[in-house]
């Protein structure tokens, strides 16, 4: 029998690139979460770095602007003692007409060991992963509407940190699922890790047409969708990805789907609230919730560094 090989795995079934949480076995997701946990102690020490990736060259290739994600990857790489080179491609060669693969070939010739790729086109990191030489690793830092696996993984880390066991949880993802690569990465990771009930909540215009095929329950009424959930994952309203009329106005969206204290009260009393950042306060989330006792939004940022350290060190060792 011939099985199409997952492009993320090497011939030993180990993680070679991280392109998506889709199709990764639970064992690998758990390995990443466990490794991240072992890194959390490092940042509390006198010397906040380990020598694991000493002498490795990691290129942050950002074809789409993102200060925060780029910075967390940079911090993670530096805490592993790697050398980090940041390239904002939209303002360099691309504007001179060089293709993505030419850019990557040139950087490979500069002895790169790992590429962290952010691109507005879905699939760009896959394309790069297919064309780099076999010793180079690629991490997807967000591609179009497709995937943002390290964000999905840090969300899983956050949930595990507060809720311990995935197999008893009801998790709701609220908002603009249609344009969200984060939501897709969350859904695949949640189902693989054994969360029995994943709900997506949003207006019809902001949910992908066949989202139920991913094994989630679809709600258009947030008061029903949030009932007794353990985890509420809010999404950023992606104004910059919207062309045409997906919703009447941000105010209207806030009224119907914005997470405020009243709506959150429908969830379990100990429910936690996540947001991938940057937040549009007063659009998808109210400040009283974002800054409230159930919010774990800032811990998410801290855990994000440990997750990215884990992914880089696992890839570099495989």
């Amino acid at each position, binding site marked *: 029998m011939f099985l199409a090989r997952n492009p993320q795995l090497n011939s030993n079934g*180990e993680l070679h690139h991280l392109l998506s949480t889709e199709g990764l076995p639970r064992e690998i997701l758990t*390995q990443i979460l*466990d*490794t991240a*946990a*072992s*890194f*959390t*102690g*490092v940042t509390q*020490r*006198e*010397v906040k*770095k*380990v*020598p*694991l990736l000493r002498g490795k060259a990691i290129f942050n290739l950002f074809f789409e602007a993102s200060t925060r994600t780029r910075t967390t990857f940079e911090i993670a790489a530096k805490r592993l003692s790697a050398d980090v080179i940041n390239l904002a491609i939209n303002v360099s060669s691309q504007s001179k007409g060089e293709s993505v693969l030419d850019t990557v070939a040139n950087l490979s010739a500069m002895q790169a060991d790992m590429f962290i790729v952010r691109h507005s086109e879905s699939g760009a990191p896959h394309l790069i992963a297919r064309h780099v030489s076999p010793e180079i690793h690629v991490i997807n830092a967000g591609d179009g509407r497709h995937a943002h696996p390290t964000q999905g993984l840090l969300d899983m880390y956050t949930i595990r940190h507060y809720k311990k066991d995935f197999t008893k949880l009801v998790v709701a993802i609220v908002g603009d699922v249609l344009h969200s690569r984060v939501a897709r990465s969350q859904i695949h990771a949640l189902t693989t890790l054994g969360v029995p009930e994943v709900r997506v909540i949003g207006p019809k215009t902001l949910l992908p047409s066949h989202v139920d095929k991913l094994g989630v329950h679809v709600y258009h009424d947030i008061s029903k969708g949030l009932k007794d959930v353990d985890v509420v994952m809010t999404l950023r309203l992606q104004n910059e990805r919207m062309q045409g009329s997906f919703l009447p106005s941000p105010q209207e969206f806030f009224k119907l789907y914005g997470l405020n204290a009243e709506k959150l009260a429908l969830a379990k009393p100990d429910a936690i609230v996540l947001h991938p950042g940057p937040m549009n306060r007063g659009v998808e989330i109210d400040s009283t919730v974002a800054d409230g006792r159930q919010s774990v939004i800032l811990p998410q940022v801290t855990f994000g560094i440990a997750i990215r350290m884990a992914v880089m*060190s*696992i890839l*570099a*060792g*495989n």
Partner: protein
Amino acid sequence: MSENAIKLPDAEQLVAVLTAQMRPHVTPQTALVGIVTGGAWLAERLHRELGLVLPCGTLDASFYRDDFQEKGLKRGVRRSEIPFDVEDRELILVDDVLYTGRTIRAAINELFDYGRPASIRLAALVDRGGRELPVAAQFVGAVIDVPAQLSIELQRAADGRLSLALTPATNQDRAG
């Protein structure tokens, strides 16, 4: 020489030997740091036997190993926990089996990222020779000669009793 032909000493007796060796050399300021997992079990035991005050530290030096290039990151790396200030501290690093010395090198490097200790000494339940680095233990339960194809493993029973066992060596073993 097969696994059955080698007689291993009783780990509980070695704990007693080690405790007696260490007792005159520890003060209330001394802290133990056990290397996971066998060394951490042993450190816990020695901590109790010696009646030390400071809590035990545990160290998983996987992020400092010199074989990361060849072997990658091992599964199940544990978070190191050093629950005291390392600066100016008298430390005793504790491991179950002292072999190549590479684990100890990695552990010392990691400890220095917590601060500058006053001193680091080394206690090992078993020294099996085979050093590849200039590392020596100040406190040793027993010196045992074991062929390279075998590995010595510390085990802990449900009631906390420690014992030694021989297992076929995997390629991880030259690490120790």
